[in-house]
Structures are given as structure tokens and as C-alpha cells.
């Protein structure tokens, strides 16, 4: 299907006159062959060259050196261009930026129209393709009304309708929530299993590739590891060095093995791990496990009746309705009450549309409640005498993809924007910007670079510094890790944790990923359908597995492993949230 030989791709940086000022080698002497009907996965973090490689497969980019053959056709031959693009379909990362038409069915028809397919056949292809990804019922809908996962499935259908032999998916899940990610991966696998189409999946999530026939791991433009998922996943340390997120089942198995349990190499899924553990002799009395977090219930909420002074935020019976009073009224929040003490690190969890974004926008007055109110430091922020400027300096809000709001010529000036708006004098403004940039890990040298020349993770740091420079008492971050690779994600979360420790700020971290926040926060608030569903420490929350699943949320993989083992009579403590806890509990059973 594909035959890539010694392929090199170089990006040229040019100055304003067009002279080459620098060369970046994105792909460095890569050779690989893909057989028809295979499911291939390419892993690597951002900047590893995997997307550049993918763009060669349908001749969007051409190799600087070496050759790329697609189904026997050299991508450098111009007269084969359309044939190659028809052979290899491509699905991109951003669900909004690849749908052309205003109705789902018309978008699926776009490719066949370009190929000059007769009208009747276009309709037939549209029907087949949308059915293959399970989106046929949505064919009359506007793409703007679909979820991210649904949009990506429409994009896959759009490619499928061109009858390709191969589909390349370039990080199709990077911008989706867990539910959307599952949808897309399921659709991709169905194409491979049912339609026999060669699939190449490019991703930075390892758990998405466990069903692949062959996995390549890229770093710095080179293929550094390859093999079956089992072979690749057994090299846990190497993978961690590359900062890839190894599935928790694999990590747990690795840890247990190092502690002396006789487990085989390359365990990929929780089912496998549970099966293997069942075979081992264990003391299943049920009480051997050391108590986990859940056995020491922490009630982070202080008893009622205390003075308001200790509470950073009190949300009092808050309700919000969009387009209130019209036929299109949507209830986003209904009767939410929460008390958040000063200095607490809270994880606010809920799937898309659960009301979490609406809730945080009330906390700094961007939205006004339909009913109820919010007290910050004991003051009603919706009182008409309350100064909004003061509120904005107290409650900092970092939106999703905050780097999209950068606008100044250099990093430093951009960070100054917030404090300047507070009306501080120039000296204070600059001091604050300096401190904030230092806190997010910038050196003095990079203060005067244009924010648009930075990498994704660095831009996000600048944007966070922009809010930090306003010195808020409360910092709210909406999905601060969205779209980042595992490496970037861990760095940002570590940074936030560190900030919270150093400054004693109250931090509210909004996320749809339980796994991400479990290790960082003191308390988790779960939102569902506009109200608070669960509220407590991570250990407590994760004992409610079935309720969380109903709300469209997944608990960390280890929690599932422990639950599955308990079904087999292991008697481990409930509410285990980290790999270390799980490993310790299992080892206690084996007497090791």
C-alpha cells in the first residue's frame, strides 16, 4: 500500500525577503512499508514529525529526499496527484475546519462531486458512507449542531465516499472529549474490520492503538520503536522517557512485575491484567489490603454556620437559563449550591454540556444568574454596587485554548494587558508581568519573542501568565490541557499544582477527564445536567462508578481494575485512584 524509502522532509524558515534563515528537519530518513488491509498506528508527541509524515501519504507535502510510493505511484509525479489523493483519504485534527458544506449529506457528497461521480451514485455513496460511521440519521443536520465526535465521523464518511483504499487519520481525537474519542476510534476500527480499508492512525494516546497490527513510535523525526502493540508496550521505561501516556493497565502490570509478581510482558488491557492476576495464588480473604483513601473519609467542607471569611466562594442556589423567556430557553444550571474554602484545589468534572462552563462564567460575572447569587469573600458579586473590575482582579478565568486570545507583539506586553486594565501604574504592571512569566517557567531571553512563534504548550503558559499577573485569589482554568499531548498535559498540570502550593490560591480546574485531575486535586465536584451530582474527595467520588458512567464520565482505569478484581473476590479496598495505591493493595494480598 505504502512504501516509504529514506524519506526526509525539511521545513524552511524564511525572512521577509524570502531568504532561507533556518532549516528544520521534521522527518529524518524514515522508511516504512504498509501492507493493504493493515491497521497501522503512529505514536509520538507534538513535534515528533508524525503529522508531517502523514501529509506525504496523499501528496499534500513532498519529500525533500527519498521517495514515497502510494499504491505503486510516486507522489512526485504530478499527473498522478488526483489518483493518489483518491487512493489515500485524510481526516484532520480540527473537526470544525474540514467540513465544507452546511448540511451533513452535502459535505459527504463534496468529495465524489470533485471526482465527477454521477449524481445518482453520489447519493448512494453518501448513504453507504454515513451508515458505515453511524451518522445516517443526522444527514439533514447542520454540522454546527453536532458534537466534536460526530463531526469527525462525518469527516470520515466524507473521505469514505471517495472510495479510498486507505484512510489516514491525523490526530482525529486530539480535540475531543473521552466519549467523542471512543466514537471516532470505533468508527476507524469498523472501517478496517468491515470494509477492509487500510487505516493509519496518528495519535498521542496509547490506549487508542492497542488494536493496531503494527505500531511505530516517532521522536525527533525518526522512528524510534516499532512492532506489535504487545512488543512496543512491554518497553515501558523507554515509552515513559518519550513522555507518552502508557495505559494504566500496562503501568500497573509493570509495577507489579518489578515487585516480583510473575506476570507476562506487554499487558495491554485491563481484561488481560485481571485474567493474569486471577491465575496467581493470592490470599483473597478480603481484609488483607491496607486501607485506601476511601476508608478515611475526608470531608473537605467545613461545617455550616462558620464565618464566611474562610470561604473563597459561596454559590447560593444558582440557576441560569439561556435565551430566558423565549421558546428556545435552555436551562444550563439549576439550583447549584457550593461552598469552596480558601486555598482549596477543586476539580470540576462533567461532560460537554453538563453546565460546568456556565457555572464558572458566573464566578467572575461574565454571565448573570437567572436566580440565586454568588458570594466572593462574603460579598454578593451580583449586587449592583459591586465593582466588576475588582471582581476580575480577584477571580481569574483562563478559558479553553487560552492561547487563541494572545494578540500583542511580544510575550511580555501580552502578559501586561491584564494588570494594565486594572489601572495599576507602569512599574507595578511590569513587575507583575515579570513575576507571572517567571512562575510559568519563562527565562528573560524569551520575554520579547512574538507569542505566535512559540509552541502550543508555551503559548498556553503565556496565556496562563496573563491571568496570573492579575494576582487573583481564585484561579479558574477551563480545560487547561485540551489539545495538548501527554507531555504538555503533565507539564501544565504540574505547573498549576505548583502555583497553587506557592501562592495559596484557590484553584478550580475544569475538566472532562477524571484521570487527569485525580492525582492533583483535593476535592472533586461532578456536574451533570446542570446540577451537582457528586461532591467529595477523589477517593469517595470514584466509588460511584455506575453513576459516573451514566453521566458519561469514565473513572481512572485503575479504579476499574480494582473493581473487576473485587468481582473475582479479591476484596481490595474501594476508591483506589492511583497506580501506586492499587499496586500496594494487590501486593499486600500476595504477601509481598
Amino acid at each position, binding site marked *: 500500500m505504502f512504501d516509504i524509502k529514506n524519506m526526509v522532509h525539511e521545513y524552511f524558515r524564511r525572512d521577509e525577503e524570502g531568504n532561507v534563515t533556518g532549516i528544520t528537519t521534521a522527518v529524518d530518513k524514515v522508511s516504512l512499508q504498509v501492507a493493504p488491509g493493515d491497521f497501522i498506528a503512529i505514536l509520538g508527541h507534538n513535534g515528533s514529525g508524525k503529522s508531517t509524515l502523514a501529509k506525504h501519504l496523499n501528496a499534500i507535502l513532498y519529500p525533500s529526499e527519498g521517495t514515497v510510493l502510494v499504491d505503486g505511484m510516486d507522489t512526485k509525479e504530478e499527473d498522478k496527484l488526483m489518483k493518489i489523493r483518491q487512493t489515500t483519504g*485524510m481526516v484532520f485534527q480540527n473537526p470544525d475546519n474540514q467540513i465544507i458544506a452546511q448540511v451533513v449529506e452535502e459535505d459527504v457528497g463534496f468529495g465524489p462531486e470533485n471526482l465527477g461521480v454521477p449524481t445518482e451514485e453520489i447519493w448512494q455513496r453518501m448513504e453507504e458512507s454515513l451508515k458505515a460511521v453511524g451518522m445516517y440519521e443526522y444527514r439533514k443536520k447542520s454540522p454546527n449542531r453536532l458534537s466534536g465526535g460526530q463531526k469527525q465521523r462525518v469527516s470520515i464518511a466524507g473521505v469514505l465516499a471517495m472510495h479510498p483504499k486507505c484512510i489516514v487519520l491525523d490526530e482525529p481525537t486530539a480535540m475531543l472529549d473521552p466519549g467523542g474519542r471512543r466514537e471516532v476510534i470505533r468508527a476507524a476500527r469498523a472501517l478496517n474490520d468491515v470494509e477492509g480499508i487500510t487505516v493509519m492512525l496518528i495519535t498521542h494516546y496509547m490506549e487508542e492503538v492497542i488494536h493496531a497490527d503494527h505500531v511505530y513510535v516517532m521522536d525527533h523525526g525518526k522512528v524510534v520503536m516499532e512492532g506489535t502493540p504487545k512488543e512496543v508496550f512491554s518497553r515501558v521505561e523507554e515509552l515513559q522517557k518519550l513522555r507518552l501516556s502508557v495505559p494504566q493497565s500496562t503501568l500497573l502490570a509493570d509495577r507489579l512485575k518489578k515487585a516480583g509478581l510473575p506476570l507476562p510482558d506487554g499487558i495491554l488491557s485491563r481484561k488481560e491484567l485481571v485474567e493474569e492476576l486471577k491465575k496467581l495464588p493470592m490470599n483473597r480473604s478480603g481484609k488483607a489490603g491496607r486501607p485506601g483513601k476511601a476508608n478515611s473519609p475526608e470531608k473537605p467542607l467545613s461545617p455550616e454556620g462558620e464565618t464566611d471569611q474562610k470561604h473563597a466562594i459561596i454559590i447560593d442556589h444558582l440557576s441560569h437559563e439561556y435565551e430566558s423567556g423565549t421558546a428556545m430557553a435552555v436551562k444550563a444550571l439549576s439550583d447549584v449550591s457550593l461552598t469552596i474554602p480558601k486555598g482549596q484545589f477543586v476539580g470540576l468534572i462533567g461532560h460537554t454540556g453538563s453546565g460546568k462552563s456556565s457555572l464558572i462564567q458566573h464566578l467572575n460575572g*461574565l454571565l448573570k444568574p437567572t436566580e440565586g447569587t454568588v458570594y466572593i469573600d462574603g460579598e454578593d458579586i451580583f449586587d449592583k454596587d459591586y465593582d466588576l473590575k475588582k471582581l*476580575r482582579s480577584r477571580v*481569574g478565568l483562563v478559558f479553553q485554548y487560552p492561547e487563541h486570545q494572545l494578540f500583542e507583539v511580544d510575550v511580555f506586553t501580552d502578559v501586561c494587558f491584564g494588570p494594565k486594565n486594572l489601572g495599576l501604574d507602569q512599574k507595578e504592571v511590569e513587575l507583575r508581568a515579570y513575576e507571572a512569566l517567571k512562575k510559568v517557567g519563562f527565562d528573560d531571553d524569551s520575554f520579547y519573542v512574538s507569542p505566535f512563534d512559540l509552541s502550543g504548550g508555551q503559548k498556553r503558559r503565556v496565556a496562563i501568565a496573563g491571568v496570573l499577573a492579575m494576582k487573583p485569589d481564585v484561579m479558574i482554568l477551563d480545560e487547561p490541557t485540551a489539545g495538548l499531548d501527554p507531555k504538555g498535559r503533565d507539564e501544565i498540570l504540574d505547573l498549576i499544582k505548583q502555583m497553587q502550593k506557592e501562592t495559596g490560591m484557590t484553584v478550580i480546574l475544569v475538566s472532562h477527564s477524571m484521570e487527569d485531575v485525580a492525582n492533583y486535586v483535593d476535592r472533586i465536584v461532578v456536574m451533570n445536567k446542570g446540577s451537582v451530582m457528586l461532591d467529595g474527595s477523589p477517593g469517595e467520588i470514584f466509588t460511584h462508578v455506575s453513576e459516573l458512567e451514566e453521566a458519561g464520565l469514565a473513572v481512572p482505569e485503575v479504579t476499574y481494575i480494582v473493581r473487576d478484581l473485587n468481582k473475582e473476590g479479591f476484596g481490595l479496598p474501594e476508591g483506589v485512584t492511583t497506580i501506586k495505591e492499587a499496586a500496594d493493595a494487590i501486593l499486600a494480598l500476595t504477601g509481598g
Partner: protein
Amino acid sequence: MIREITIGQYYQTDSVLHRLDPRVKLVATILYIISLFLYRSPQTFAVAGVFLAVCIILSKVPFHYIVRGLKAVVILMLFTAAMNLFFMPGKVIFTYGILKITKEGVEAAVYMAFRLVMLILGSSLMTLTTTPTQLTDAMEKLLWPLTKIGAPVHEVAMMMSIALRFIPILLEETDKIMKAQAARGADFESGNVFHRVRSMVPILVPLFLAAFRRAGDLAMAMEARCYQGGEGRTKMKPLRYAMRDTVAYLILIAYITMIVLAGKLL
């Protein structure tokens, strides 16, 4: 806040007018607007009014939906009416201070208001019964002869339909950026004009960047799906005239004839 702008958006229902070929509707709307300005007499206006009323009834679109389009231009209408009313020279029928109202002024004001109302109702009826995609298709097809003299008809139609697809997305994006900058203490409402224009910079720069980023992505996605311009493309939904479209054209001819008759003879 910004998302609630809706003027003449497609209203989904099933009616004769909805099923008509968009080319018929486009031609009819243009001819209708011309017919409003051909003559100026109560008779022609009566014919035009009745014609539109019948169309509105046929369209099955609720009346308040159609009238909503008028809200946007109420100020303009009042302004033109006032200008006509007070500044038209002619036979004075009423004076108050320096304000003089003439007979001709009243007539002109009434006619102008009537024309504007009919014009807006007529064109919003078209957009209410025709999807933007159909409209661009119709435009592409009607203007197709112009390609012979080198006009980029397909490209313009494609640009229009992409613009329509991305307007809601960019509006949402604007909303988000405004909120984000407001959270950083930006103030868009106070200060003088100069101040306010300056305060738009933190919104416009990110917005343009976002638009360029999207345009780049979209161009790549279109190329990857073998888009090469209009040549050699087939249509998923080709426009084909049906019997009812011929009937509609005949009715249109009858209407124009009646307008001319009413204008000339009466």
C-alpha cells in the same frame, strides 16, 4: 450575546414555495423589486400587495417570522418617511413653526414606506423559503453564462457558501474572545470613540488569526478531497426545472403584465 442575530433565516416547512426551484425564486424576487419601482400609483401597489400576500399565505411561514425582518430596518424607514414628509416641496397642507408638510410629501412618504416594506417582506420571504446553499447554487447556475467572459462564477459561489458555513463559527469565536478579554479586565463599553476603537484590537487580532488558521486548514482539507475548482465537478443536488417551476414563471409573467397594465391604463 452576539449569537442572537438572525435576519431572514431559513424556515423549515413544506410548501409550494419551498419546493420551487431556487432560480425561480431568485428571478421572481428581483423582478418583484423592479415592479415596485416601475410605477407609482395606488393601483400598482394594490396588485403588488395582493401578489405578495398570496405568496406569504402559500409559503406557510408564520406571519410574525416574516415581519421580524422589518425590525432591522424600522429606523431607516422612519428616517426616509420623515425626510419625504418634511422636505418635499409642493402644496403646503400643514405648518408648525418651521416644519411644513406638503401634499406631495405625504404621498411620497406613504409610497416610499410601502415600497420599503414590500421590498423587505418580499426578499425575506425568499430567504425564509430557500436555504443558503440553494441560493448560491441558483446564483451559480444563473450567472454561468458569464464564465464565457472569464468571470469566476464557481469560485464566487464556493466562497459564498463557505462564508455562510463559517459565519456562525466565527460569531461564536468572537463571543468567546470577548469574554476571555473581559476576564482579563478589558473594557469595551466606556470611553470615547477613539478609546473604544482601540479596545477592539484585543478582539480583532485573535479573531483574524483564527480566521486565517481556519482558512488554511480548510484549504488543505479541500485539496485532500480532490477539489480543483469547478471544472469536471458533478453535482449532488443538480437544479432541474419541474412542471411547477414553469407554472411559476407563467404566473410571474402574468403578474408583471398586470403591473404594467395597472400602471399604464389606470
